[in-house]
């Protein structure tokens, strides 16, 4: 934001410059957030289609590229139905709150060294705080709908999000201890120097566990499968948004994909080096540097992992969900906080274990090889199938 702030002549009053710069940044971010889900939904349908041995959208536009736009237009033109006995004010306010909660986090996500809404010194704390706003919206939606299924969904989401924030916080503490700051920009700058310096490989194997715990808790917080019990479509019809239609339903949809993006982006900022390239040589190709590209690449990869999980795993039950949060993730988080805290205090391991810088590349290499192997064999199999069908 300070970048744009500097563009305006100093002769303008201070508040005008602040308002204009803020307006431009907010406009850019909201456009990005509102248009992003159109792409994400399309990718999700295609990923699901690939996993389920079918084609996915292909009629609207080339390769079905315009399908989500058509869907969005359809949703916007549909009538918003208010159920009898619903609390109309809360009913309208709820989806707005959910979307606001999802959108506010974007302000502090660093897309580049200077490309950030604003670098709050309590950035991490801010992300955690605003992402809880959506919970209020969900409960409100469930209550205002005057529907028992919606109420069940709302109660479930409240229990779930409150439970999963605790292990997530524990893991965030370890990151904060290592970085020594809550600012997201400072977190990214700590990880300078390429892939082996990323926090994911610090204190190997402690921080990888932390990353997995955080990502799992994040999945639960954005109500994605296998933790999608608040909207479990086979049990609660559609959970908290059972009664929503048209534009308000579209808002819930938008919020879901925005939250996916936020969780993935925060995970990549905290553990995957944010806008740093895997190797310093790859950082500054081109005139402005590739920071945003690298952050988006990491974020989209994590979003792909979320979709992958959603179309693979069954759903947990409520009590099993609580079990995972309180008896598995929380103890792991506590142990991690204790262990990382102690290791930071010890003189020899102030900046990680001696072998940390050697595990990064081999691990990533192995993972990429494994993924490539899976992709190639899947593609070969589907090609063979297609030939069999044609024969």
């Amino acid at each position, binding site marked *: 934001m300070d970048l744009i702030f500097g563009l305006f002549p100093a002769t303008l009053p201070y508040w005008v410059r602040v308002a204009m710069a803020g307006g431009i940044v907010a406009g850019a971010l909201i456009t990005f957030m509102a248009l992003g889900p159109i792409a994400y939904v399309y990718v999700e349908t295609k990923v699901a289609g690939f996993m*389920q041995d079918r084609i996915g959208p292909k009629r609207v536009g080339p390769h079905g590229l315009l399908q989500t736009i058509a869907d969005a237009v359809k949703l916007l033109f549909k009538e918003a139905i208010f159920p009898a006995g619903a609390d109309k004010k809360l009913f309208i306010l709820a989806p707005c709150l959910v979307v606001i909660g999802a959108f506010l986090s974007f302000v502090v996500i660093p897309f580049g060294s200077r490309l950030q809404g604003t670098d709050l010194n309590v950035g991490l704390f801010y992300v955690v705080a605003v992402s809880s706003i959506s919970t209020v919206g969900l409960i409100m939606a469930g209550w205002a709908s005057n529907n028992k*299924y919606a109420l*069940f969904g709302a109660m479930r989401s409240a229990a779930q999000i409150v439970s999963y924030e605790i292990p997530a916080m524990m893991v965030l503490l370890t990151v904060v201890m290592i970085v020594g700051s809550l600012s997201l920009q400072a977190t990214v700058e700590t990880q300078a120097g390429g892939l082996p310096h990323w926090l994911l490989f610090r204190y190997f194997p402690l921080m990888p566990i932390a990353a997995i715990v955080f990502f799992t808790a994040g999945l639960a917080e954005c109500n994605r499968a*296998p933790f999608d019990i608040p909207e479990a479509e086979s049990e609660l019809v559609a959970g908290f948004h059972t009664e929503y239609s048209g534009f308000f339903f579209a808002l819930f949809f938008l919020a879901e994909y925005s939250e996916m993006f936020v969780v993935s982006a925060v995970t990549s900022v905290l553990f995957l080096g944010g806008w740093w390239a895997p190797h310093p040589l790859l950082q500054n190709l081109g005139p402005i540097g590739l920071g945003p590209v690298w952050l988006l690449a990491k974020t989209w990869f994590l979003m792909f992992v979320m979709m992958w999980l959603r179309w*693979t*795993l069954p*759903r947990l*039950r409520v*009590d099993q969900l609580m079990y995972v949060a309180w008896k598995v993730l929380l103890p792991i988080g506590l142990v991690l906080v204790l262990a990382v805290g102690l290791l930071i205090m010890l003189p020899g391991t102030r900046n990680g274990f001696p072998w940390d810088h050697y595990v990064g590349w081999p691990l990533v290499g192995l993972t990429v090889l494994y993924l490539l192997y899976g992709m190639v064999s899947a593609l070969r199999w589907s090609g063979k199938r297609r030939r069999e069908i044609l024969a």
Partner: protein
Amino acid sequence: MSTQLQEQYGWRIEDLDTDEMILNMGPQHPSTHGVLRIELRTDGEVVRAARPHIGYLHRCFEKHAENVDYPGVIPYTDRMDYVASMGNSLGYALAVEKLMGIEVTPYVQTIRVIMAELQRIASHCIAVGTYGMDIGAFTPFLHLLRDRETILDLFEWTCGARLLYNYNWVGGLSHDVPEGFVRAGRQFLREFDRVTWPELMDLLIGNKIFIKRTAGVGVCPPELAISYDLTGPNLRGSGPARDLRKDVPYSGYENYEFEVPVGKGQFGPVGSCFDRNWVRAIEMKESAKILHQALDRLEKMERADVREKVPKRIKPAKGEVYARSEAPRGQLGYYIVADGAGINPYRVKVKSPCFTAMSIFHVLSRGMMIADIIALIGSLDVVLGEIDR
């Protein structure tokens, strides 16, 4: 609030149970497998009592059967269990043949076995697939539906219909299998054995979350299962190895080699939702085994007229008969009374496996969580068309 209620409806606040909530699940609910309505008394997530309400799909099958001639009943039987029509019409054909003393040719018997087993695989594909969807796994459902589609193509090729076949006639079949059927059947089996079945076992049945969700849920001990007259995979999931194809063979099932899988309780007490679904999954493999043998047999046989034994005029003498067969969902029994006067049956009564399976629902569902209710309905694999008839 309380005074207002009192004035309006004559209720007292003391009469209201504040802790429990009545939740009507269905008749329009994504996972009640048709139009079943379940009245749940819930205390938070825990279900205190569940009462199924059936009858939304009642189409007077038994009354219809009294007003059409014997072959005319067959299309109506197709519409009972619309997921496994071949099994229904086979049971009816067996009953009328028993009543009239008709022996069908081995050629017809072999084709009937092939069709029944293909139908069993297709039906179990739907059962296990939608069960996965109830648990939250969407992908296995579409994989299984893909293979069911192949089976339906085979059926369509043979008799022109994809869902309601009118194929098993009294004394024969409506059509002979087309040229090249054996080859196409083997093609399907190859794909099923090599791809779909291992994929199903890996992706769904062996999945840790799936096991956690189903093992130990809705446990039905063998004694309870027998006393509530569960049949088919539901009974075998509880332990007893009862299968009419083995116990009282019909249509030449005694000539085939296959196992009767029973629930072993690998991950908890025997008779849980997991065991019922595991039995279904293994049964698909066993059906494939039977199909291999039957296709080999069909290849060696000489083509014959499948309508050779179909009587010109079906008018059984006065008498009554009860015949049962192993439909994909369990024992399907037909009780037919002929008065010897008209060309239509005097009475047709169906003993439906889904109806008896539904009768145990309120016992097993006590004290469950809402998510488990869904898991239980799916594991009993009821088809409302057959319950209501």
